[in-house]
């Protein structure tokens, strides 16, 4: 077993690395705004900036910068803006350095209180503040991953000898036990309503796919049975010497058997239940899809189907009332 890493130490070193790379990165953005004018300060600023980035601004054969409008540094028309940029350069450079020194500043004095942990440097403090949050998130993700890893744990009770029948049941169990709860997990914060709609859409879509697969599976049963019965029928015909000589007759025998099996299936309670479930899943998916689409349309101020429905209903009622009034006006309903 590897030694557990101290969260605060790890976070502290990560924070150091992040601060350094961030400061270097932002310092690196200074060169595209080279020093303007002829003053010493500007020259110094440009030196500082280029030194920190290790780059030279790109210039053309006339010595003009190619990287942007500020490249025309000698142009009198743009000198005002260039002055502003040089000031920004200087300011940025010193600012970046200041941040670096703050973050790598001396440690604060040790805690005078026995047993109370020493405060340490700023990054240690920050690491301690953020550490528990990172840790909690880490733990939660770990748990989720672990549960996802055991997603197939429910398959043991199924018999893989009849995989075609069991495959769907296995998938349903896996989805219900392992995945669905994540889609049903409560969403938090400003976007929770939208997130819930998206989650509901994916959930209903998966349930519809599952229901359709089950429905199609049921529809395929007569095919399998018809082949078995066809085999038996042929054996019977062969035994009695009545086997047809026309190839097409064999097709007709099989078709009649198939038709018979479908008629039996379609009146069975199992089929009717599966049909009802599939229709319900289809309706649930359609509702979830409409909700999601309405949500998206709402962002662009496009009327949703709910809004249009309300309008259609109003029109419907108005037309009906108008017709009634019309009929009343035409000689007590005798409108001939």
């Amino acid at each position, binding site marked *: 077993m590897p030694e557990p890493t101290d969260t605060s130490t790890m976070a502290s070193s990560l924070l150091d690395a992040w601060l350094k790379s961030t400061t270097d990165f932002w310092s690196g953005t200074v060169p595209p705004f080279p020093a303007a004018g002829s003053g010493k300060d500007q020259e110094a600023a440009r030196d500082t900036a280029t030194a920190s980035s290790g780059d030279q601004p790109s210039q053309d054969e006339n010595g003009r910068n190619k990287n942007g409008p500020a490249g025309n540094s000698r142009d009198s028309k743009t000198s005002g803006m260039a002055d502003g940029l040089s000031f920004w350069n200087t300011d940025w450079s010193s600012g970046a350095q200041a941040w670096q020194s703050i973050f790598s500043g001396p440690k604060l004095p040790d805690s005078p209180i026995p047993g109370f942990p020493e405060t340490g440097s700023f990054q240690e403090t920050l690491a301690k503040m953020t550490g528990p949050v990172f840790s909690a998130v880490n733990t939660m993700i770990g748990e989720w991953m672990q549960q996802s890893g055991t997603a197939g744990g429910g398959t043991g009770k199924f018999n893989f000898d009849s995989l075609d029948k069991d495959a769907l049941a296995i998938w349903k169990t896996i989805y219900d036990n392992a995945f669905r709860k994540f889609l049903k997990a409560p969403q938090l914060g400003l976007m929770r309503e939208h997130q819930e709609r998206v989650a509901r859409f994916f959930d209903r879509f998966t349930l519809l796919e599952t229901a359709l697969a089950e429905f199609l599976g049921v529809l395929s049963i007569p095919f399998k049975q018809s082949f078995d019965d066809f085999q038996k029928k042929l054996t019977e015909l*062969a035994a009695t010497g009545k086997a047809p000589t026309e190839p097409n007759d064999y097709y007709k025998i099989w078709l009649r058997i198939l038709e018979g099996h479908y008629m039996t299936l379609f009146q069975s309670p199992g089929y009717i239940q599966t049909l009802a479930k599939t229709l319900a899943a289809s309706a649930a998916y359609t509702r979830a899809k409409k909700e999601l689409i309405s949500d998206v349309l709402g962002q662009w101020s496009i009327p949703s189907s709910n809004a249009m429905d309300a309008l259609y209903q109003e029109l419907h009622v108005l037309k009906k009332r108008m017709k009634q009034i019309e009929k009343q006006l035409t000689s007590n309903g005798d409108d001939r």
Partner: protein
Amino acid sequence: MDKTGFPVDLILSKLAENTIGAQSRVRQASEIMTGPLEAEIAQTPYEIVHQEDRVKLKYYAPEKQPADRVKTPLLIIYALINRETMLDLQPGRSVTKSFLDRGMDVYMIDWGYPAEQDKFLTIDDHVNGYIDDMVNVIRRRHQAEQINIMGICMGGTMSVIYAALHPDKVKNLITTVTPSHFDTDKGLLHVWMKAVNADDLVDAYGNIPGDFMNFGFLLLNPARLMLDKYVGFMEHADNKEFVENFLRMEKWIFDSPDVPGETFRQFIKDCYQGNLLIQNKMEVGGKRVDLKNITMPVLNIYGKFDHLVPPEACEKLTRQVGSEDTEDVCLETGHIGIYVSSKTQKEFVPKIVKWLKEREPDTASAPTKNPDQP
């Protein structure tokens, strides 16, 4: 016959023959399928005489007017599922044309394609709204107190409701493959619909998509409708006339408008699940539909092999209505065959026309051009 009991040699030699035949068939089929095909449907000329929203009233004028013709105009009310073009599918097998050839004035409601804004339309809106308005237009055009109504399938159910609520406007009622008694387990649709949560579907979808309904109809007999039908097509794909007729039927079958949600909801709950109509308990537009109000003559035609609306769902109607002049006719065919099979073409329209003639008064007149002027 070999030791397995199968005439293997014979089967193999026939298969070889078939293979040679199939090669030539495929070549010819390819030429037919890529060549010009006449597969248009609904070719009989008509005129739109009234329109309300998306719903149109088509008028088919007879070319000849024999002296003994049925002068009272006939309104055909089709179902909200699929389209009325089925009655005019192909030359030589057109119910519409057969009526016209006998000198009848034929009107037909074209329900169009319901859109999102139609989802709140109820059975009341269809029966007391559109149908009643169309009936009034026809009455005005012909200066007639009453007209003849022929309903088809769900359109027949709506015709029954209309006739019960407006008996004074209906001279004769003809119901064809019309479900009125829904509490039966003879048809799969009747079995399945009891398990359907109509509220759930309508709340989710609004209108019920036509493709959704069509898939349900295909499932009623997948072996025949999704497999054997296309095997049959491949076997006859080298016959141009067969291909054209097959394509016409395909065009009609998969031309499926959506069903307005609220109408679907009420039809499933009140009819398929509650079986309220035949018990005189159904309410439409705040009024109870009492079948005893149907005092006009009723001709009830249905198919013996109808898997969608079995005879058990149709035959009770004539016993429940108030009329004493009723007749049931069970034809040896299925739900669609009743209108399109060449065999029933010889029975279906002639029977209706004969029945109507026997009840024809000499009061109706030819249509006037402006229906708004009495």
